[in-house]
């Protein structure tokens, strides 16, 4: 009986964790600012990333993200290097990559080949010429 109790206890514990997990998963973006260690957060020390180019589910195939990079003061950052990586939430799929091309001051077009239906997590990295960087994750869905 005692053993049974422990089994039930272990299972209960597992299910709590399980519920917590699923909640975490549905949360989307992580903070887009990266602070240089040892420095306080002032306008000059961080970047932000804004994304556009998709709303609602996308069809599979070639698409492009619009990425705008700004500094802490809200001014666009020109000449940054912008890269994106797409992972499917299902394991076992090769990730896709895209390199941003600046189409207007501070605005970058990142081509991506969303080659399969399902949930994708796009991780965007931006690094400015003066070495500041930021990372942002975006979830998107591809429907056949």
């Amino acid at each position: 009986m005692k053993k049974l109790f422990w089994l039930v206890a272990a299972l209960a514990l597992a299910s709590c964790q399980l519920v917590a997990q699923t909640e975490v998963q549905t949360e989307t973006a992580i903070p887009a600012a990266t602070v240089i260690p040892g420095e306080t957060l002032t306008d000059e020390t961080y970047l932000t990333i804004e994304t556009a180019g998709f709303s609602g589910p996308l069809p599979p195939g070639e698409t492009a993200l619009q990425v705008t990079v700004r500094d802490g003061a809200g001014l666009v950052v020109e000449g940054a290097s912008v890269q994106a990586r797409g992972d499917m939430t299902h394991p076992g799929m090769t990730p896709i990559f895209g390199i941003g091309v600046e189409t207007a001051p501070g605005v970058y077009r990142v081509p991506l080949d969303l080659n399969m239906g399902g949930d994708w997590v796009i991780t965007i990295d931006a690094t400015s010429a003066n070495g500041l960087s930021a990372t942002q994750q975006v979830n998107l869905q591809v429907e056949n």
Partner: protein
Amino acid sequence: MTAKLKTPLYQPPPAFDALWMPLIGRLLRWRWGRLTLQTPLLLIALLLIYDGFSGSPMASRNLATITPWVHFRGLAVLALLLVGNLFCMGCPFTIPRTLAKRLSIRGRRFPRVLRNKWIAIGTLFALFFFYEWLDMWASPALTAWVITAYFAASFVLEAAFTESAFCKYVCPLGSFNFTYSAVSPLQIQVKNSAICAACVGKECVNGSYSPQPVTLIDEIGIQGEPIKTHEHNSRGTPGCGTLLFAPQIQSNMDCTMCLDCARACPHDNIGLFGRGFGAELSRPKVWQNRYDISFLVIGLAWLGLVNAFGMVPPVYDLMQSLAAAFGLTALGLSDKLIEGVALLLIFMVGAGVIPLATTFAAAGLARMLTHTQKRDKLRVALASFAPIFVPIGLGFWIAHYGYHFLTGLWTIVPVFQEFLLNHRIGILGEPNWTLGGTPNLELIGALQAVAVVIGYAASLWLTQKIALRLYRRQMLAGFVVWALLLTVMLLAGLWLFSQPMEMRGVVIFD
């Protein structure tokens, strides 16, 4: 010229015995042979738990999700088809279990009412339902919890009961493996059943372990003096954990390929013999016409369809219309909960109502058309044909798991490289994320169709064999009924696997 007989004397062909293969056979028969297989798998399991809890939360970049959901499942079904139940043989969950066995004071037997496959059917259903609903494939931590729960459950059940209750009655993976090891080309068998008849200790099932040495007398001379003896002692091995008696074994059902029986038998009378693919499936009464085993086998074939259905676009449309039809969206439930209810409905119908209704209908109809109502109980008419669901079911599973295995085969390499780098081990260098390139989906799709069709063909062949045995001259009527059901399943499978895969975790209801 040496003299030669025109017709050589008859000699039965020597059966292939895996236990006498060079090197591998020796390793298998060795006292610690199983542990040698289990140890690497235990280390892998611990690594997965560790990475699952501490590594990247992204499933495609975590070993805990890639290894079981892409590689393990694919390899397990292939091994079942080509060799045997290798994953039960190397099962790491049973290592702490062996410890539990030592700790447990003379336990009880598993409750009699539970000594059947109904719990296992329940755990299989639950595993696949939660896998789909909670998107286990997308969550390394959840997968790590599942692995941990396996260790805990097998430990607790082993400590509480004398037999390996977890393997035989509870474990969903084991039940899957037991079912499909019916096709495997290897099976435990005795070499000479006359030796078993005279065997004193029946160590294959009782074991040769005894805390104090005990001498058993195998043969008594004319004067009553022991001519041949052997001993049980603390170095002995346990008998069959799932309580199979070697000379009676006709089926791989419940055999974990642990080989304890072969090690325990003092007369070296047990082998792991070669046999035809699926040989046991055409043996009469191989599963004693039991309902529980029949529905394990039948249910698994349908679960194969339902599980694959959960990964193609039409499932989302169906869930939407179910949610609308039952007014779930109007109730103000969360999307996740609505998805759960809709999915549960799909599972209950697809892996519950449909298999039950169709097999009872087929059994009843076949009995009626062949005029065997008086002779056969409905249970016999149904259970006799349960084996025909094994090949077609395995075809579905191979098509599905083979898809993930082939598309994701190389993705484990960069994930492992990244894991090492994150732990400051640079020997494998920078992760090569594009390794393997884009998989050839047309080719994989063709292979999937081949797997399903071969499974179907084997099932049909089995159906005519069983129908002939059961209904003799009336066999055609019996055959047609079951063949029709198989054909419906084939068409469902082909349609399913021709759909594009679309693995969505987040479903939004409108």
